[in-house]
């Protein structure tokens, strides 16, 4: 029972971690929380559904194609709802992202309807561990795939030229443009990477929780809690935060109460904010005068 909860908690946790990573990347690049990140998850899931169920491609291929398409969606999102507003106040960008999230949500409803759909599993069947714990292979696949993607993103950001460009832009856009970095391309890449990460999460979660056009809000809210708990602006923090949220959800749901799941997560968020506002991994953030 506990092992089973652990596996399901970790596997939903890593997906929250993926969404949270996407959010953190955008936050670091442009300094504004992306309120449409949850919708990327939903949209990625639906793209995967289109490729897998409507065009009958194998699930692996459709996951990859769907997440690449999500990269394009990310660039479009950046071009329409962030770039024109880059010099405006942060709250104008937040509201425009909310508008974009409504557009994505309603667009998905108009295209795919509001009946929940699902996609194929990456791996079928289940195994029994330690006597009584039934673990579905899909959970294991989610953990493995997500871990691989996280490692690749780490390599991309820390070891490659493009990653350095993205980090430089995130640190200081003006300075980056002075040393010859095309800022729009670099920010576009960041948005694409963020949407890619979140979109693949949607395709992975779809067989476990049915896809519908309103799933983005809850997933986005949990990823948001994950970021704040893990440490604001830190990529490792986002992953750890995602794991914590997933585990709290799984164990809290089993042992305390399923109705209070979300409340538990948010009580934790408020407590973390009260006693360690920079989160578990966050460094001290300086305040601008």
């Amino acid at each position, binding site marked *: 029972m506990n092992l089973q909860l652990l596996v399901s908690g970790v596997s939903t946790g890593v997906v929250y971690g993926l969404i949270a990573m996407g959010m953190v990347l955008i936050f670091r690049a442009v300094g504004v*929380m992306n*309120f449409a990140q949850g919708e990327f998850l939903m949209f990625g899931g639906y793209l995967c559904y289109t490729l897998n169920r409507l065009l009958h491609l194998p699930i692996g291929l459709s996951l990859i194609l769907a997440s690449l398409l999500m990269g394009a969606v990310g660039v479009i999102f950046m071009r*329409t*709802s962030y770039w*024109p*507003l880059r010099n*405006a*106040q942060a*709250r*104008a*960008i*937040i*509201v*425009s992202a*909310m*508008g*974009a*999230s*409504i*557009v994505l*949500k*309603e*667009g998905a409803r*108009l295209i795919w309807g509001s009946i929940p759909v699902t996609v194929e599993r990456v791996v079928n069947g289940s195994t029994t561990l330690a006597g009584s714990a039934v673990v579905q292979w899909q959970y294991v696949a989610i953990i493995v795939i997500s871990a691989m993607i996280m490692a690749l993103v780490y390599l991309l950001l820390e070891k490659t030229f493009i990653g350095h460009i993205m980090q430089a832009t995130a640190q200081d856009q003006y300075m980056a443009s002075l040393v010859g970095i095309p800022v729009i391309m670099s920010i576009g890449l960041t948005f694409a990477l963020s949407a890619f990460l979140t979109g693949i999460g949607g395709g992975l979660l779809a067989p476990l929780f049915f896809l519908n056009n309103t799933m983005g*809000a809850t997933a986005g*809210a949990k990823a*948001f*809690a994950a970021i*704040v708990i893990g440490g*604001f602006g830190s990529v490792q923090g986002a992953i750890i935060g995602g794991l914590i949220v997933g585990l709290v959800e799984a164990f809290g749901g089993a042992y305390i109460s399923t*109705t*209070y799941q*979300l*409340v538990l*997560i*948010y*009580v934790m*968020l*408020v407590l973390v*904010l*009260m006693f360690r*506002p920079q989160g578990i991994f966050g460094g001290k953030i300086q*305040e601008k*005068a």
Partner: protein
Amino acid sequence: MKQLNYKFVIKYILPGLFLAFCLAIPGFTSGYMLRVLNIALITYLCVLSLYVILGMCGQNSFAQAGLWGVGAYMAANFVMKMGAPPLAALLLSSLGTAVFAFVLGFAFFRLRQYYFTFASVGLMAILNGLFMNWNEVTGGALGITNIPSFSIGGAIIKSEPGNFYVIFFICLAAFFLMKVLFNSALGRSFMAIRDNEIAANCLGVNSLLTKSIAFGISGALCGAAGALYAFLAGYLSYQTFTFQQSTMYLIMIMLGGTMSPSGALIGTLIISLLQEWVRPLQNYMQFIYGAGIMILMIVQPEGIFGGGKAIYDKYLKHSKTARTEAD
């Protein structure tokens, strides 16, 4: 002289005409439309509360719908469990929500800027969870039904026009109170914090206390709105008081312009009425609405009223320079 006339028209005659028009509204609108307007005016009180905390004090809160719910459930409980008269319940729940928000403000405003916004998102989710699950007080998932209508003294106000006048006058009072607040020392210290918190501290503004007061005032507005909603609808459900509702308030105030109560009114009315008028297009409505918000933010990030005011100011300045050049 001509200048003065323009100002006079804009300051007194137009609002006067608007007021007269508003008072005449129940004469020519259907009961259904009045209901929509009533809800819109209640929403306006909540948006006004966002004006205090965001427009004046510069702190973005996503907990307003939660405070609205606190007010609504408080009023319902005062009337149904303690037998308080509705008018007293309205005042008490407004006051109670204000105290609730003020105390929470002390805890939450230890966090600054973004972090406060995050905490307010958390507060919203926690409050919604409580509304859904705290059966003794909120009726849980079933909600509270059969809340009596509003009454003053012995006169029960049940009809839509009657409710409209009650809500309208409370909105009007709130509007003018906001104008007074804007010009008071307290309002100025709110704006000092909005513009530069450190500078405000240097000038002797206690920012923690001041921000908590701002949150308290916004709580009072939300509490009054909640009580009015409880009496108007007669039924409370946790599904009304959601995070989505809070984001709606933010969109409304950003649409109208954060810098004035009038902007808040314009934003509220546009969104509330648009949803009714374009009902035949219901299927595409939300989509158009989302796209509209994006387009508006791109072309007019200051909101409709903010943009209009900027044009008016530019015109004034232009005509002034034209006159000085003529001299």
